[in-house]
């Protein structure tokens, strides 16, 4: 009964979403305020029914209702309750329902938090989001109904959740990622609504900006969690594989990064308006493209669910409608919103432009690498795959190009600045940073590494720019405490995010360069030394968990004579599915991770294939991503977003030059 209720609720939600798409939009066209004012109510209705639907599916999972097909194929009575709950989105149908649910949350948030918006604007924004909801709800209902029953012939027990997904990280990774993915639909809706109204001004950018920042922050955190999960769960110690599905989440992030910077210029100076709109469309289209890549199974990926061409076709058609429709609207409307504001060649605007160009080019190269196999296959040129070396070779130099400009960014002035001023401000920091770059790699016990030196210089340059900027802002402030308190949340958000980027640079480069990994055959009693750590294989043990049996390998790790850690790596065999999974043992720290994973038994004598890793500073990049996410979230608390926005256009290129 409950699954039928869920199904029914989803149908009602779809009907409400159709009404939300049609009625307020019609109202905005005819100038009918009654119709437009229906939008928030309809949005709330969509949210409520999506929530009911999702809760019903969750109940079916928690109650082991194996007559429901997705429950039978993705859950098991032995599964711990928390994983029964996360199993709701551990499959295609359920994760799509989560997508819809999160879209409805964004709908509700926009409807309740944007009361200050002009009625027409709010009606259009909610309508556009409603249309996206219609697309995904009908996708869910018509091609991948999560409430489908297996009647008759209800299985006695379920197939079990894929063991890789039985993990705390996977409970929150998809919701966070979807918050980001779907969040760009808000930026998209604002852009399309503004195009419809033909009004692209600083006020529009100010409305759109906090939503975009939040979506971007969630996406950063979601990607970070995915990377962390891959690191400890997949058992080979990698943290980024340039897998098509990782790219699918990374491309919207790159485009989103360009978008939040160009929005800054649009809000502060009324510049780059049509460009910002285009980026908003682009970022959301990439989110949709990502969904298409994941859901259709067209690419070989560790994330692909069982392929179904019909599903792929549906999303592709929807993608075509959304991208085609919005670009047509853009082509018709954009020429009328060109800005007539100039800026100096040496100015903050130029630096933001560099940011945009670099991030856009990076997005396109990743897009090219991701779609290249599809393209060649479609042309009948054979089945290619593009490996990580391609992406590294393209992406890393591009980011390195960006950082010199990024360091100057905070100290630069809007409108017009001078190279002379930059030089006078940044000369001393530059020398300090160069000295650090030369000195820091010497702290490592390995030979001098030029790449690490370069990374330290780049990251230091970013931080130096921020420090110099902070000093400039507070040169006549009486006390440090007062200066700290005087800055706005959006300033601190920028500082946090840029520091996060610096942390991530150091983490990525140090791990890649100093990482030591060894696959070897070890029997209990044997010892192996790696980077000054002595790994002693003590014994193998048999373990039993709630729904699995495991072989464990107990290691003691010594540095000199000091016992650092006792580590237990596991090889689990899950009872319901019979699938085998590696559970790595990780001794984590701020400056190094030790990582042990078991392969398979080798030969006689109880020996195992064992993977030992030494990974210095690997946590810095996740820490960096957390900083970026926190920075993005912090900007929203800025008072100027909470203030009721005035209905008249805000003067463009205002006097608040100091703010980021």
């Amino acid at each position, binding site marked *: 009964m409950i699954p039928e209720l869920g199904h029914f609720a989803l149908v009602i939600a779809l009907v409400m979403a159709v009404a939300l798409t049609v009625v307020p939009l019609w109202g905005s066209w005819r100038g009918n305020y009654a119709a437009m004012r229906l939008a928030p109510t309809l949005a709330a209705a969509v949210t409520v029914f999506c929530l009911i639907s999702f809760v019903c599916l969750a109940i079916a999972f928690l109650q082991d209702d194996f007559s429901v097909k997705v429950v039978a194929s993705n859950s098991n009575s032995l599964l711990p309750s928390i994983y029964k709950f996360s199993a709701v989105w551990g499959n295609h149908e359920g994760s799509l329902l989560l997508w819809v649910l999160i879209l409805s949350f964004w709908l509700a948030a926009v409807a309740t938090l944007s009361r200050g918006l002009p009625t027409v604007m709010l009606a259009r924004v909610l309508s556009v989001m409603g249309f996206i909801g219609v697309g995904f709800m009908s996708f869910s209902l018509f091609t991948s109904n999560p409430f489908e029953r297996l009647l008759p012939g209800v299985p006695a027990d379920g197939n079990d959740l*894929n063991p890789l997904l039985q993990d705390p990280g996977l409970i929150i990774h998809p919701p966070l990622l979807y918050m980001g993915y779907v969040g760009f639909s808000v930026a998209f809706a604002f852009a399309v609504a503004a195009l419809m109204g033909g009004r692209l001004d600083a006020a529009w950018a100010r409305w759109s900006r906090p939503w975009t920042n939040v979506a971007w922050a969630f996406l950063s955190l979601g990607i970070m969690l995915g990377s962390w999960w891959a690191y400890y769960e997949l058992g080979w110690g990698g943290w980024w594989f340039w897998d098509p599905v990782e790219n699918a989440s990374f491309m919207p992030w790159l485009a989103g990064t360009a978008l939040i910077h160009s929005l800054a210029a649009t809000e502060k100076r009324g510049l780059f308006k049509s460009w910002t709109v285009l980026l908003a469309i682009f970022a959301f289209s990439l989110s949709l493209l990502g969904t298409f890549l994941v859901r259709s199974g067209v690419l070989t990926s560790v994330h692909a669910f069982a392929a179904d061409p019909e599903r792929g076709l549906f999303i592709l058609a929807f993608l075509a409608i959304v991208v085609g429709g919005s670009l047509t609207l853009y082509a018709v409307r954009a020429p009328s919103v060109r800005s007539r504001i100039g800026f100096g*060649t040496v100015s903050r605007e130029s630096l933001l432009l560099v940011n945009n*160009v670099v991030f856009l080019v990076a997005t396109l190269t990743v897009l090219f690498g991701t779609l*290249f196999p599809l393209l060649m296959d479609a042309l009948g040129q054979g089945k290619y*795959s593009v*490996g990580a070396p391609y992406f590294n070779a393209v992406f890393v130099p591009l980011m390195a190009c960006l950082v010199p400009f990024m360091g100057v960014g905070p100290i630069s002035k809007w409108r017009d600045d001078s190279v002379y001023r930059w030089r006078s401000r940044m000369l001393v920091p530059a020398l300090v940073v160069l000295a650090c770059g030369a000195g820091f790699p010497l702290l490592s016990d390995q030979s001098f590494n030029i790449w690490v030196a370069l990374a330290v210089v780049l990251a230091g340059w970013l931080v130096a720019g921020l420090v110099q900027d902070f000093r400039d802002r507070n040169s006549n402030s009486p006390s440090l405490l007062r200066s700290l308190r005087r800055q706005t949340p959006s300033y601190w958000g920028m500082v946090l995010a840029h520091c996060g980027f610096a942390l991530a640079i150091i983490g990525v480069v140090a791990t890649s360069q100093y990482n030591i990994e060894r696959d070897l055959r070890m029997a209990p009693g044997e010892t192996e030394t790696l980077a000054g750590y002595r790994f002693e294989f003590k014994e193998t043990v048999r373990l039993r968990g709630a729904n699995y049996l495991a072989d464990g390998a107990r290691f003691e790790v010594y540095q000199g004579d000091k016992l650092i850690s006792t580590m237990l790596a596991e090889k689990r065999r899950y009872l319901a599915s019979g699938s085998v999974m590696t559970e790595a043992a990780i001794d984590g720290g701020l400056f190094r991770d030790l990582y042990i994973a078991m392969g398979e038994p080798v030969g006689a004598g109880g020996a195992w294939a064992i993977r030992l890793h030494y990974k210095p500073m690997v946590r810095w990049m996740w820490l960096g991503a957390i900083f970026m996410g926190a920075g993005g979230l912090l900007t929203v608390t800025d008072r100027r977003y909470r203030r009721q926005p005035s209905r008249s256009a805000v003067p463009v290129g205002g006097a608040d030059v100091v703010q980021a």
Partner: protein
Amino acid sequence: MHPVRKQRLWVVLSIVLFSTVAIGLAAYALRGNINLFYPPVDVAAGKAPLATPIRVGGMVVEGSVQRSDTTLETRFTVTDYQANVEIVYEGILPDLFAEGEGVVASGRLGADGVLQADEVLAKHDENYMPPEVAEALKNSATAGVTP
């Protein structure tokens, strides 16, 4: 030059510069880092290049997996039910690698017709089959050979 034009020139120049860098890097990176998939039947027929990074995939033949007693070397045979290719891999195989399952190995083909793999990918859940393998199997099925 008029300042607005001059600025536009700079904008265009910087876009051209970065795109050129990107295209150059992409072209350079693509040269060595893409590899083509060959089904076993093509490898057996000698259509696959030697000593070039390629990928070969198929089903692991039952009973073909031999593990060394002293090192991490594993030998196994993959098939598309028309031809077989022997693969040697040194290292830790993925959890879902098993006889009778689909795998894709990337590596270089030796003169002896054995693929020296540096990476082996197995399917990662019950229903999923690497698309290349699925298609190779489908092609060999339509070629009139029963598995």
